């Protein structure tokens, strides 16, 4: 019996580098429209996320509980202590954490796709998944007294893996080439996954814990996880959004970007560092939730046909909405049992993405 990390960055490696379709002409689209639509979707997802769950609680009860937690407001919700705790301590942090993680994975995916000019790039491309997986597995097999260190170990593993990838990849290849960085990512991920698999097989009694972490979950989300990752995700989001126009410049190619006066290697390392920091934080508390980083940015791109100026912020908002909705399915479809959220994102997300891809093709041919 063997389980390996899902390695979104590994399988299609040979066919992957520098894939470029015909570059669609960028329409001068206003960012406002798509952002308003995405914010509407996010608001809807939050309302649903707060009002739906295995525990039977009304939306008005949810509103009253939230109102009672507003600062300087002395308001008694009239909801029982247990129900209030369920909403405030269990359900709400889960919605918020799902939103943060979804925003980060989708934003990170969009940024990586821009930097590496590769439609298959996702936030796990340079070894985040393998590094975090190794860190988490090492802590799980080390025993119960180490449990609190799990997020830290996953975070450290992810950051270390990407650092090694970047340093090795940018020194062995042609100056400024992204191919060697992507290939270094494949090698680093393979190496770390091998070590992770070895550790896991040596401690078969922990198989379920390791596997559960790898599949990704928001099951035990609390406010402390939210507080833990918020700074990283905020910094990462600000840096990525600030670089959205430069991503458009990189899109025309390394040499062209350089000739336009953009120092592409410096832009690239800044974006990769920001995306890695945020993704590592997200992965540290939620495990490896797949597909979000690929399907959300592409869906945004296909429906708006816009530049990164639009794609990046809309992907973040849309990713938050998508993961909140996926988590609703994870906790209600088989209620009171849970479904791993990674299963939901793939099961719902992949067909939806194919649908968008198809309608887009039909739309173009006419």
């Amino acid at each position, binding site marked *: 019996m063997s389980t390996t990390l899902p390695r979104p960055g590994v399988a299609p490696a040979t066919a992957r580098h520098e894939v470029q379709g015909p570059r669609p002409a960028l329409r001068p689209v206003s960012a406002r429209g798509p952002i308003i639509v995405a914010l509407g979707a996010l608001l809807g997802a939050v309302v649903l996320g707060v009002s739906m769950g295995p525990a039977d609680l009304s939306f008005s009860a949810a509103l009253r509980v939230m109102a009672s937690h507003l600062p300087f407001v002395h308001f008694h919700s009239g909801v029982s202590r247990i129900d209030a705790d369920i909403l405030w301590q269990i359900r709400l942090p889960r919605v918020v954490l799902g939103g943060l993680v979804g925003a980060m994975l989708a934003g990170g995916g969009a940024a990586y796709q821009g930097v590496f000019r590769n439609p298959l790039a996702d936030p796990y491309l340079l070894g985040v998944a393998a590094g975090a997986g190794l860190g988490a597995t090492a802590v799980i097999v080390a025993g*119960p007294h180490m449990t609190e260190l799990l997020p830290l170990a996953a975070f450290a593993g992810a950051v270390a893996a990407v650092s090694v990838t970047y340093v090795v990849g940018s020194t062995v290849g042609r100056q400024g080439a992204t191919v060697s960085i992507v290939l270094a990512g494949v090698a680093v991920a393979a190496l770390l996954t091998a070590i992770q698999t070895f550790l896991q097989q040596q401690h078969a009694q922990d198989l379920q814990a390791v596997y559960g972490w790898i599949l990704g979950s928001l099951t035990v989300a609390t406010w*402390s996880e939210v507080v833990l990752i918020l700074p990283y995700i905020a910094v990462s989001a600000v840096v990525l959004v600030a670089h959205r126009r430069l991503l458009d410049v990189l899109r025309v190619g390394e040499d062209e970007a350089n000739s336009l006066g953009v120092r592409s290697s410096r832009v690239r390392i800044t974006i990769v560092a920001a995306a890695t920091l945020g993704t590592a934080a997200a992965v540290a508390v939620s495990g490896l939730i797949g597909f979000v980083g690929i399907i959300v940015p592409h869906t945004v791109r296909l429906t708006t046909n816009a530049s990164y100026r639009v794609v990046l912020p809309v992907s973040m908002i849309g990713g938050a909405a998508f993961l909140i909705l996926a988590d609703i399915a994870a*906790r209600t479809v088989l209620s009171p049992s849970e479904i791993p959220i990674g299963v939901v994102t793939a099961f719902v997300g992949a067909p939806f993405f194919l649908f968008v891809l198809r309608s887009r093709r039909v739309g173009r041919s006419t």
Partner: protein
Amino acid sequence: MNKRSRRMPSGICAGLALLVASCGSTSDNSAGAGAAGAGSFPTTISAANGQILIKARPRAIVSLSPTVTEMLYAIGAGSQVKAVDKYSDYPKSAPRTTLDDLQPNVEAIVAYRPDLVLVPGDSTGLTGRLKAFDIPVLSLPPAATLADAYRQYGELGQATGHVQAARTEEAHVKSQIDQIVAEAPKADAGQTYYYELDQTYFSATSSTFIGQVIGLLGLHNIADRAPSAADSGGYPQLSAEFIVQSNPDWIFLADTICCGQSAQTVAARPGWSAMTAVHNGHVVTLNDDIASRWGPRIVDLLQTVETALAKHRATT
């Protein structure tokens, strides 16, 4: 801690020797089947993996199941055990090795020159591979019911030449369980419990072996409301908000060793402190290893639960 003595086999066996025809140690296989407590060889066992022929009384047993290891020592076959797997941590005297049932290394097993290999299942095809070496493999899969667990004493007794001791041990476990159930406070019947397998809220329904054992005390399992319980083999992952809203009277933690959980860690979980079980001190810690096995120590587990229930009744 435990008012009932459990490690009985040799003592009881000696005591019974006057009553029963023979008991244990003789290696004389002359008499007809079943007449001698040592059993007779060759013998064929109807096991989970088919009809298994054992030609002679085994003298080098390899056990790849912690539960089976416990059962072997309980029926007095410990001296015939050559090697046990790395998870067989009880009794301490068992010859623990690095063997691992989940990834059995045929060469490593054969190196012990076993004349009987005991496994908790044959998903890896060990039976077929050891056939080439003429080594019989007996599969004793995880018990789905108490009756399954009891039957395995008989199979092991027949396979190892301890028929009578196995019968005695089986009867002893049965009578201890019956006694605990009889003593359990009836007033608490109808109370609910949540059984925790790990800190991500995996649980066990009352259709599982452990669920049936705890169900003997008349408690209702909140995980039974999970519609997917059957699909997940009776081990669904529950939502935290469902557990809290169900507000069970009791919380049983079978993740104390694996995951370091305790009454304190449960009370510290956000949203859990208002629960009745937490408030009343009804968070009962169990030994994960015992709770995941179906051997003789299941009596200890049931006793722990019953003691908690009785203590509660005494204080109310």
